[in-house]
């Protein structure tokens, strides 16, 4: 456990170093880069930027200051909005989290459902589920997004096309994100259930007269839960990055579209902050997934 947490800290530190150090990899003087890379900058403005980022300090000191600030919630000021980055993030985060939450519910319910269906029914249903979900994964999310907007947003008018705020607005974006995740979730569910189904204790349960439905729920699915939870967790963690595409496609005001705007306007402090947030969340969620395993499988618990 301690080793795992240490490894987590090291990876996080390395990732944050990459994110911070990236500004120094840019061609030219970091000042012009950090100032937004525009040509007609007054010397006074450049001096202000230089002072704001303490660019005259040694590199590691700057990194330490940035990291310390980030840990304590001070992510610097946005060049574009002239606002605290932390405030910007706080304003955008709820809508992104809501999107990720809706998506997670959707793909978990549908993906696990389809996987169970494929494993239990087998034959044609199985083939159809595998083919259908694989096909769905082969279509890039932004294409799915535009197709859904065209069909349900404009042609049928069932859902709002752009903007956010309500669950109604989140439906199409969440469906878009979930479609891409269905294949991997249903495949893991199916595979894991098929493995569990072959185990002796399932036959024992069947021999004791338990109905097939109860066997599937109480033994096969329960036994398959470990890999399913892991996969759903990993997909959810990766979804944070997926919001970038979907928020851009649906014009949602979330963290993802903040990142796209920040890059297009050369707002590097915001870029850094969003990346750091997403990477941190990703690493935390993946670690969390490992930590819940003992709750699912008592054999993974340490003897008290």
């Amino acid at each position, binding site marked *: 456990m301690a080793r795992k947490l240490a490894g987590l800290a090291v990876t*996080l530190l390395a990732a944050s170093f990459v994110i911070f150090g990236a500004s120094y990899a840019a061609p030219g003087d970091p000042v012009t880069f950090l100032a937004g890379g525009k040509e007609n900058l007054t010397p006074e403005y450049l001096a202000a930027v230089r002072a704001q980022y303490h660019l005259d300090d040694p590199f590691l000191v700057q990194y330490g200051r940035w990291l310390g600030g980030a840990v304590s919630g001070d992510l610097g000021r946005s060049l574009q909005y002239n606002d605290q980055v932390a405030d910007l993030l706080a304003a955008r985060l709820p809508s992104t989290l809501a999107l990720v939450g809706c998506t997670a519910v959707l793909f978990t319910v549908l993906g696990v459902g389809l996987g169970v269906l494929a494993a239990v029914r087998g034959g044609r249903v199985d083939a159809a589920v595998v083919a259908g979900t694989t096909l769905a994964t*082969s*279509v890039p999310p*932004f*294409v799915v997004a*535009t197709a859904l907007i065209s069909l349900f947003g404009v042609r049928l008018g069932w859902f709002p096309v752009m903007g956010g705020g309500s669950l109604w607005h989140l439906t199409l974006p969440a469906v878009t994100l979930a479609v891409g995740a269905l294949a991997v979730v249903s495949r893991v569910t199916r595979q894991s259930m098929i493995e569990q189904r072959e185990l002796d204790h399932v036959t024992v349960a069947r021999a004791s007269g338990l109905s097939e439905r109860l066997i599937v729920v109480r033994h096969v699915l329960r036994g398959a839960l470990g890999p399913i939870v892991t996969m759903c967790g990993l997909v959810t963690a990766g979804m944070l990055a997926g919001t*970038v595409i979907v928020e*851009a496609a649906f014009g949602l005001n979330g963290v993802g579209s903040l990142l796209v705007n920040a890059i297009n306007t050369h707002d590097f402090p915001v870029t850094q902050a969003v*990346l750091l947030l997403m990477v941190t969340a990703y690493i935390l969620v993946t670690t969390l997934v490992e930590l819940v395993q003992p709750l699912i499988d008592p054999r993974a618990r340490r003897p008290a």
Partner: protein
Amino acid sequence: MTAVATLPPSTARPLGHHLATAFLAVVVLAALFAPLVAPYEPDAVDFAATLAPVSPEHLLGADQSGRDLLARVLYGARTSLVGPLLLLAIASVLGVALGTLAAWRRGWVDAVVGRVTDVMYAFPGLLFVVLVVAVFGNGMTTAVVALGLAYAPTIAKYTRSVAVAECGKPYIDAYRVQGMGGLAICVRHLVPNMARPIVGYLVVLFGEGLMSLATLSFLGFGAQPPSSDWGLMVKEGQPAVVQGAFLPVLVPGAAIALVVVSFNVLGVRFADRLGVRGS
């Protein structure tokens, strides 16, 4: 999705393969002979034809500036196919070199390559590429190179696993006994012997690479106007959707989806043949 969802599931497996092969052949030919077959120049603006529907003049309609969508999608096949090829080339040169090195030297080299890979994996999805784009600016070159860098660890990891198995085979020792240098063995024997599984793996990655690159273009980080890259075409066509004109997004969107689907249909089988393990 409209065209995609009706593709036959795997019950019609041979038919699916034929369709996929035929479609990809058409796309490659279109990319090669775009100037000959395209009815217009891809950037020929004609405001009289703004958002034209399907008609004999514009077989697939036209976009907001009246540019013929068929011509654009045909020309777009070039960037959309060459881009993934280039990024895979970059990724495989880097990845195969690192993976072979890690497997050959083991010890600390292996550990360092492993740690670098771990850090890269800490960036979910396209975030590493987004960081590179943020630093070096938008553009197709940046996007391709960044994606190449991002794919390299995956290939390195795969190469390493293949190479470790290969290094255990007796012929490697035989060459060593003959006094051949490590570099020579790797370049002349080890890597060529791993070519089959690695190429198979690259085929599997191609569809994903195409998707990633199109996504970057869609976000505005990759191809820039007036390019007719498919991802960019979807982005540029989006405003028209609200006006009820679907062709500007559906045409390039369907092109991407169909190419990726075809590639995955064929890739899986191809990879099986070449003996790609557990990808």
